[in-house]
């Protein structure tokens, strides 16, 4: 066997080993108990240009006040979908901004909808009262609604905010708490878009 072949084989072996070394974290580790944290404190904004926007799933559920609500009924409006929980610090930090933006954009056909994760309804209600949240929130104790988004733009943690355009497509995603100006800058262009109509009939 020539030296070159030997060298080539050895190189392949190195590559295989590099694969092993690149695996994240140590070889096999685990914690037996939960650390009690499952929210994201980092930030990250994803914008989706028209034409490459994923379609938001048609979710529906029960609000904290017991009504039944579905996302499809919001078609034609811009929807700002916010995943939150009353126990989550960053969610509480952004709550005043969201409430204010909800009021600001109400007349422009922008609707806000919350999805409440891992919360008991009483605490969630109290949260709404504290921050004077005027928009409804769907209760999602079993994570089914979060799961519905897995094919498109899954929430990587909470808080996560999605901006859905008038045709029901996801235009932007923010992971982490939003700021008033930041979210406003995301919503405004989407609100200015005209919906794509089929057959010319506008809703």
């Amino acid at each position: 066997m020539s030296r070159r072949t030997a060298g080539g084989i050895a190189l392949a072996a190195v590559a295989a080993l590099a694969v092993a070394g690149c695996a994240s974290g140590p070889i096999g580790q685990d914690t037996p108990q939960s650390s009690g944290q499952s929210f994201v404190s980092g930030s990250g904004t994803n914008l989706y240009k028209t034409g490459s926007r994923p379609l938001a799933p048609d979710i529906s559920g029960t609000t904290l006040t017991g009504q039944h609500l579905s996302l499809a009924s919001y078609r034609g409006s811009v929807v700002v979908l916010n995943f939150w929980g009353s126990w989550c610090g960053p969610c509480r930090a952004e709550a005043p901004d969201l409430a204010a933006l909800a009021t600001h954009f109400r007349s422009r056909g922008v609707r806000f909808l919350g999805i409440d994760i891992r919360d008991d309804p009483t605490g969630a209600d109290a949260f709404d009262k504290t921050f004077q949240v005027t928009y409804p929130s769907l209760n999602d104790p079993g994570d089914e609604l979060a799961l519905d988004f897995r094919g498109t733009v899954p929430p990587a943690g909470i808080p996560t905010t999605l901006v859905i355009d008038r045709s029901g497509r996801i235009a932007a995603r923010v992971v982490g708490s939003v700021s008033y100006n930041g979210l406003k800058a995301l919503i405004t262009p989407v609100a200015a878009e005209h919906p794509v109509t089929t057959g010319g009939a506008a809703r």
Partner: protein
Amino acid sequence: MSGAPTGGGSRGTGAGGTASPTVDPRQAEFPADAPGLDGAASSAGGAGPGDEAGPADGAVFADGAAPAPAAPGLGGARLGPVGWLRWGWRQLTSMRTALILLFLLAIASVPGSVLPQEGVDPAAVSQYYAAHPSLAPILNRLSLFSVFAAPWFAAIYLLLFLSLAGCVLPRTFRLVGAARQQPPRAPRRLARLPMAASYVTPLPPDEALSSAGRLLGGKRFRLRTGDGWVSAEKGYLREVGNLLFHIALLALLASVGIGGIFGYKANRLLIAGQSFANTPTALDVFRPGRLVSPSELQPFSVALQSFSATYVSSGPQVDEPETFNAALRYSAAPGSPTHGFVLRVNHPLTVDNVSVYLIGHGYAPEFKVTDGAGAVVFNGPVPFIPVEQAGLTSEGVVKVPDAAPSQLGFAGVFLPTAADQNGQLVSEFPAAQNPRVSLVSYAGNLGLNSGQSQSVYQLDLAGMHRLSIAPRPLAVGQSMTLPNGNGKITFTGYRQWISLAITYDPGQLPALISGIMALAGLILSFMVRRRRVFVRATAAPGGHTVVAVGGLARSDAAGGFESEFAELARELRTAHDGSSPVPVPAEPTAHGTTESVSSDNDQSLSIREGE
């Protein structure tokens, strides 16, 4: 090459090929630990585990060991960069380096087992920091709290496997290439081999040889015939086993790597009555591999209907758990039918190639908090974490961020079977026979509104002040009214929770197969001996033929070759109608002592084999 033994001269060039056949009996031999033959050579990867190979052994059993890496620059020739690389490569793949790396690996693992590790018990790490405030940061710098993720640890095992790969892979190719290799020629003087016998037979030499060949061939020896001799070899499976073992180790490492890259681990604490789905927002701890994206998680969901645990109530093992049963309902995807399952320790749930394990349990007392304004601002269970196993005394924190006039926080202790022992309230038994909860109350600013990430099990008291109400044990249904119009908290009941470990490891099955292959290769290489048998037939004056039989084994430590050889010699003699043996020509007077060496000891060791 420096130190190349004379007998192995044909291998001195290190071409890695097969030994060119010679008739020097030393070539055919398995040299003992002769100092003269040692030279300066280290048997660079020349033998596998279970071998007692001598350094020149490569000369005999040419399985392509690379000879010792010579010191560079010897002989006046200067090495270019390629030369240095080659020298470095030879050093890396030498047996000595492998030994050193093995020991380094073992030593490097020691701190990982003695010091608390982040990945195994983060709480213990924090305790260590508290106990050794000056030492701990230094240890942390050296990655001693996460040894097995440390870069220097990875360097050791990667180098080791590189050394292994560099040695094993070429040898595999050589083995495949040499699969049809012939045994060497028979040495002229078989008497010098470790095992030898001779006898006289009336058959002519050719017939004797051909019948010997048939006999050996029938025993599945590989044959080679020559003028007046027959050479037979057997036991190639040893090298196969050896290489299989080492390659399986490489495959094992690759499997672990694949699992680490494409798999994920997660944890979730689930209270009875709750359910969750396998999505990042629902998981308490989520550790994805490098190439795992959250949208690829298998979308199963699990609901905990109830959890029951029984404990030993008396005897020496009192308070120890007897059984744990978690009654679940699960579905593989939204819309799929749900199935029931009883989750127990040692009895995990497998859904869609993901495994869900029961690894812990505890109590979650339920509270209802009415704030100062009279509104119910909190109503639900709060998981408390056990701090001791005997009575399952548990601690936890209740945060009520939406209470008015100020946010409320409670640090509590839950006692499943509360009892008074010498004035102290303890939990006597892990089952909830007399549940009590005792709370220390705080009011102020929990710190949540500023956006700070907090653990749900810890209270940040920086902005809180303690309320002047003494904690007292509450029974189910009892309340505690808080001073200064802060409201009231009621202990409304309790539930149990389980903690689940969710793992997806695509490298698990390959790792298992690699492990089995490694074991098989190991056993094969330990059990099979490579051995050679030579037969020479020479016509003697007087019409008969003197048949000499000689044999040697590559490594006789496993024993048994003597009896095999004895059996062979006997069969050959019988086949040849051999009669009383004649003295071998007294030529080897130099060797006329009666001392014998290693083989005798082997014989005594293995004396009962084959019987």
